[in-house]
C-alpha cells in the first residue's frame, strides 16, 4: 500500500446510521492501470445492492477488496463502522495487520463464480470446516447448523457427496450454505451464476431470493442477470471505467437510465438476450 495521508479518515464511523459497508475514496491500480478511481460507496445494513457493468469496469474488484483478496492503493474501507483495510493506532489509521483484518473479515462471507468448494471434503464437511475450526463451535452444533443450511438450499440429501459428484448449480448452493454457516453480516456474490448452465441458474437465484426474504443480511452482488438484479435489489450500481457511472433503485435505473453509457450498456445487454 502506498504511503498516503489518512488524516481525513475517521478512526471509526459513529452516529445513528452507520453504513454496514463504506468505501471512502478507495483506489485500486495495477501499475499504471487504474481499476478503481476514488470509489465512494455506502451500503446500509440489510440493503441488497447489485453491481452491473461491462467487464473490466472494476465491479468484481469491489467485492474482492472487501473480502481482502485484493489490497487497496488508497482510501479506507469500513465494515460495520470499523476500518477493514486499516486499524487505529493512537489517533491515526495505519495499514491493518493480518490479525485485525481477520477479525473484521469475520463479518463477511463470499460466494464465487467457480464455487471453490474444497474438493476433498463432502458437502457437509465443507460447511462445517469454518464453524468448527474458526468459530470454535462444538462439532454437534456445527453439524446441526450446517445441516439446517443445507436443507435451506435444498441440498440436505447430498450432504455426504463430494463436489465432484455435484452439478454446478448444486455446488453453488452448497457454497452459499458454507458461507452462511459462518453467520456473516455481509454476503458477497461474485457472478455466482456465470459458470452455470442456463437451466440451473434458477435454482441458485431462488436460494438468493430466499436469503433476501428470510435473513436480515447486507448483500453486495456482481451479476450479469439483469432481470434478477432488477427483481431483488434495493439499489443498482452501474460501474464504468472504475467509477460508479450511475446508481439508483432498479425500477429507475433499468427503465429510465439518465446517463448515456448506462443506456448504451443496457440496450447492448438487451440485444444479447
Amino acid at each position, binding site marked *: 500500500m502506498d504511503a498516503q495521508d489518512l488524516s481525513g479518515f475517521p478512526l471509526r464511523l459513529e452516529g445513528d446510521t452507520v453504513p454496514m459497508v463504506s468505501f471512502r475514496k478507495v483506489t485500486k491500480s495495477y501499475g499504471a492501470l487504474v481499476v478503481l478511481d476514488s470509489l465512494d460507496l455506502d451500503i446500509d445494513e440489510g440493503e441488497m445492492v447489485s453491481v452491473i457493468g461491462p467487464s473490466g469496469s472494476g465491479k468484481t474488484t469491489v467485492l474482492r477488496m472487501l473480502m481482502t483478496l485484493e489490497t487497496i492503493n488508497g482510501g479506507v474501507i469500513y465494515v460495520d463502522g470499523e476500518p477493514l483495510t486499516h486499524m487505529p493506532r493512537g489517533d491515526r489509521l495505519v495499514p491493518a495487520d493480518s490479525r485485525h483484518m481477520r477479525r473484521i473479515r469475520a463479518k463477511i462471507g463470499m460466494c*464465487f463464480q*467457480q464455487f*471453490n468448494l474444497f474438493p476433498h471434503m463432502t458437502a457437509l464437511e465443507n460447511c462445517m470446516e469454518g464453524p468448527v475450526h474458526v468459530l470454535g463451535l462444538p462439532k454437534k452444533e456445527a453439524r446441526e447448523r450446517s445441516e439446517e443450511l443445507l436443507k435451506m438450499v435444498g441440498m440436505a440429501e447430498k450432504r455426504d457427496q463430494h463436489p465432484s459428484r455435484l452439478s454446478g448449480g448444486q455446488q453453488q448452493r452448497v457454497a452459499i450454505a458454507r458461507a452462511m454457516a459462518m453467520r456473516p453480516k455481509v454476503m458477497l456474490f461474485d457472478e455466482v451464476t456465470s459458470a452455470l448452465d442456463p437451466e440451473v441458474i434458477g435454482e441458485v437465484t431462488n436460494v438468493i431470493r430466499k436469503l433476501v426474504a428470510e435473513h436480515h443480511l447486507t448483500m453486495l452482488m456482481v451479476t450479469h442477470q439483469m432481470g434478477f438484479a432488477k427483481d431483488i435489489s434495493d439499489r443498482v450500481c452501474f460501474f464504468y471505467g472504475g467509477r460508479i457511472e450511475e446508481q439508483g433503485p432498479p425500477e429507475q435505473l433499468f427503465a429510465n437510465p439518465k446517463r448515456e453509457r448506462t443506456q448504451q450498456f443496457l440496450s447492448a445487454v438487451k440485444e444479447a438476450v
Partner: protein
Amino acid sequence: MFDWRWDFTWDILPRLIVATGNTLLAAGLGYAIAVVLGLVLALAQRTPSRALTLVVREAIEFVRSTPLVLQIFFVFYVGPQFGLRLSPWTAGMIAIGLHYAAYLSEVYRGGLESVPKGQWEAATSLNLSTSRTYFRVILPQALPPSLAGMGNYLVGIFKDTPMLSVIGVAELMHTANAIGSETYRFLEPYTLVGIIFLALSLPTAAGIRLFEAWVRRKLGMV
C-alpha cells in the same frame, strides 16, 4: 568363459539377503528424512520473506547441481574437520536425505502450485488460519499430483543407496564387493545384486500407481 557356480550362489545368498535389509533400511530412513525435509524446504519458499526464499532456492540448486557421492564424502570426511564426527550410517542418512529433500521439494512445489487460486480465496473467505489452510485445504490437494514424482524418487533413492558403500555402510553393494574381494568371484554377487534391485523396484513402481489411485479415491477427487 561363462562359468556360473550355483553352489557359490547359494552360499552367498543369505549374506546378500541380510544386506538387502540394510539397503531397505537406508532407503526407508533416507526417504523419510527427504519427505519431511522436502516439505519444509517447499513451504519455506512460500513465506513472505524474500531473503528466506532466495537462500532456500540457492541451497536447493546447489544440492541438485552437485553429485550425491561428493555430498556423501563431504559429510563423512570433511565433517570431522568442523568437529562433526558421524558414523557412516548417520553421515549417509544426512547426505542422501538432504539430497533427495532438494528433489522432493521441487515435486511439492509443483503440487502446491497446481492447487487452484480459488481454493486459497475460499479459505480466506472462511477466515481459516494460514496453518489450517495449508494442512486442511491446500496440502491434501497438492498430494495427489505430487505422488507420481514422489514415487519416482522413492525408486531413485533405493537405487542410489549403493553410493553409501563408499563410506562403508554395509548395504547390498558393499556386501557384494566384500564377497568379491574375499573370493575373487564377482559374477554371482553382482548379478544377484542386480536381480534383487530389479525384483524390488518393479513392484514398488506398480504399488505407487495403485497408491495414487487409492489416495485420489479416498479424498473424493475422482
